[in-house]
């Protein structure tokens, strides 16, 4: 069994499902011969042909709109937006059509499509290449938003997203595309959508996060351990709909919660989680909920981007602050 990176796990899952299901097609800019700008589709066109891996004209509206058309007629397109910042033209087709085709036709039609995109900052990319826009998608009814944070979860969750009978926005944390290697068996086993993954058990505080911030959050948990604080770490993974039960169960145990995300604070998914805890677990809280997030600013160009990104230090600091409450 090979040790592979997160981006290689994406490729592996795509190849697996293309082999297993002839209706799966990969559809996007430079996904063919070039294998995608991050190499996520490397080798797929050579293996499956150019009628399964389609290099599209440079038009994001077209990519999303044609995916709606294909998905409604028995195909399972997996679209790639080259970067999350170029997904915005797709909003019309994702929100007005993909997300509501089943609903508005009373189940006569459906839209099993995956919209993949490299997502988030921290790789010294040019302008418009570093947004964390998961809350945008999470707000719209009718579409799931899924974010893996490790090679094995990228493999299992992408398989689940492709097999899901409804539209999924699948955001890939590009900062950790090649951060770690993990043994991933190409066994076609999917991981469940709509559930959180508890990455680390702890008893004193719950750290909730997703995507690339899992890296800093796990580092923070180790740091806290040194000062005798036992932190539980939860990877939300599916940010819409959110598995609040797992988060509530953890907070009922620890009584404290820090939510960490790279996206801006205002109307971020962290706010939704905090509100869910306030509604259902407030009597178990020993301390205020803290959010460690990106700022409500434009993502800076790369020279300053690390000033924007939540750091391990900020997470530890927030955790220590609420550890003061007994």
């Amino acid at each position: 069994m090979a040790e592979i990176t997160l981006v290689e796990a994406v490729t592996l899952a795509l190849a697996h499902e293309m082999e297993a299901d002839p209706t799966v097609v990969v559809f996007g800019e430079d996904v063919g011969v070039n294998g995608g700008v991050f190499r996520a589709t490397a080798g797929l066109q050579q293996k499956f042909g150019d009628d399964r891996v389609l290099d599209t004209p440079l038009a994001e509206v077209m990519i999303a709109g044609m995916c709606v058309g294909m998905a409604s007629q028995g195909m399972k397109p997996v679209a790639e937006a080259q970067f999350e910042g170029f997904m915005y033209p797709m909003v019309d087709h994702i929100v007005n059509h993909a997300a509501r085709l089943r609903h508005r036709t009373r189940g006569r039609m459906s839209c099993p499509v995956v919209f993949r995109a490299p997502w988030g900052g921290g790789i010294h990319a040019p302008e418009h290449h570093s947004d964390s826009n998961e809350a945008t998608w999470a707000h719209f009814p009718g579409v799931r938003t899924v974010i893996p944070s490790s090679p094995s979860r990228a493999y299992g969750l992408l398989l689940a997203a492709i097999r899901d009978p409804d539209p999924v926005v699948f955001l890939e944390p590009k900062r950790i595309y090649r951060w770690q290697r993990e043994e991933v068996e190409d066994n076609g086993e999917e991981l469940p959508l709509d559930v959180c993954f508890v990455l680390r058990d702890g008893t004193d505080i719950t750290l909730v996060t997703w995507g690339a911030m899992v890296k800093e959050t796990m580092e923070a948990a180790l740091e806290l351990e040194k000062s005798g604080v036992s932190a539980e770490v939860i990877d939300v993974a599916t940010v819409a709909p959110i598995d609040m039960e797992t988060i509530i169960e953890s907070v009922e145990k620890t009584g404290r919660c820090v939510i960490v995300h790279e996206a801006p604070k205002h109307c971020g998914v962290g706010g939704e989680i905090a509100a869910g805890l306030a509604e259902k677990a407030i009597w178990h809280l020993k301390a205020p909920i803290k959010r460690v997030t990106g700022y409500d600013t434009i993502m800076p160009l790369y020279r300053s981007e690390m000033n924007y990104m939540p750091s391990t230090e900020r997470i530890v600091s927030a955790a220590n602050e609420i550890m003061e409450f007994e």
Partner: protein
Amino acid sequence: MAATIASFKVDFFQFLDQEGRLVDGVQIPALARDTKQLESLYRLMTLTRVFDKKAVALQRTGKLGTYASCLGHEAAHVAIGSAMREEDCFAPMYREYAAQFFRGVKMSDVLMYWGGDERGNDFAGPKHDFPWCVPIATQCLHAAGAALAYKLHGQPRVAVSVVGDGGSSKGDFLEAINAASAWKLPLVLVIVNNQWAISVPRAKQNTARTLAQKGIAGGLPSIQVDGNDLIASRWAMDKAIAAAREGRGASVIEMLTYRLSDHTTADDARRYRDQDEVDSAWKKEPLLRLRNYLTDQGHWDQVKEEELLSECAERVNAAVEEYQDRINNDPQPIDSMFNYMFKDLPHHLEEQREIARRFPAKGGSH
């Protein structure tokens, strides 16, 4: 050096003039001699007009929500629907009822939709046809996607979409042309140019001589026809669909017509256009000229016309009854708001569904 490396022309076709006479000097399609088929198409155009008038009346009396009239577009729409096979795919905008009637959509489906009930979109027509599409021109890309699916599956099926003159300004339309050209898709894009994008007249939309030439810019064969001439419109559709089905790729047809109604019942066109223009458009309307032609051919007369009108009124009334019976006696349950969001209901929606069940709107659905 300087050289012309590309130039283009747009051909215009009209076979039946506004008086209902065949024009001289062009080869007339066989359909012109097939009076039996023309009569059946005329019957559907008339049914559509009677239906349309009734739908507007229902809105005016509070029995239907906002409704988009198709008055004046009947020839274009009948040409589109009648040229398609059942296995083909139609991606309409929101007023191509005649095309949809041809494909099996019921008049009561149309009323259900504009009457605020999603079940109208679960219509009796082909289950692979797209529902009405309000976001302008997006349907062009859905049709292009369907066409790509058929092509990849090796199926001899064609996707047809309709856009207005207004919608032809949108990127979706142009991106569909581009994609259809790149992949040689089995697609027909019809611009039903009714001269008005709500209140903005054709002349203010752009200075291009035709809208068809937008197709040429993207590499597609594109023509313009008199959209009030059923014979020309149907002939153009037949040609385009045959080319698409035989693997010769997509094309664009601009059908020139006129929106004799307001944009929708929520609009009042008197605010922005002259009655003189509307009066003059009525002289070119599609039913009158086809009726004149069939009458001249000895295939139609006043008695038949009156019989047809009363038969249409009966059918429309029956559709209205079916619609009213369904919304009044078989309304959608509250659960329907939740049950079609996803194939399986996620947990958080179960919770919200419980709340909705506990707090139904006072007075129920209306």
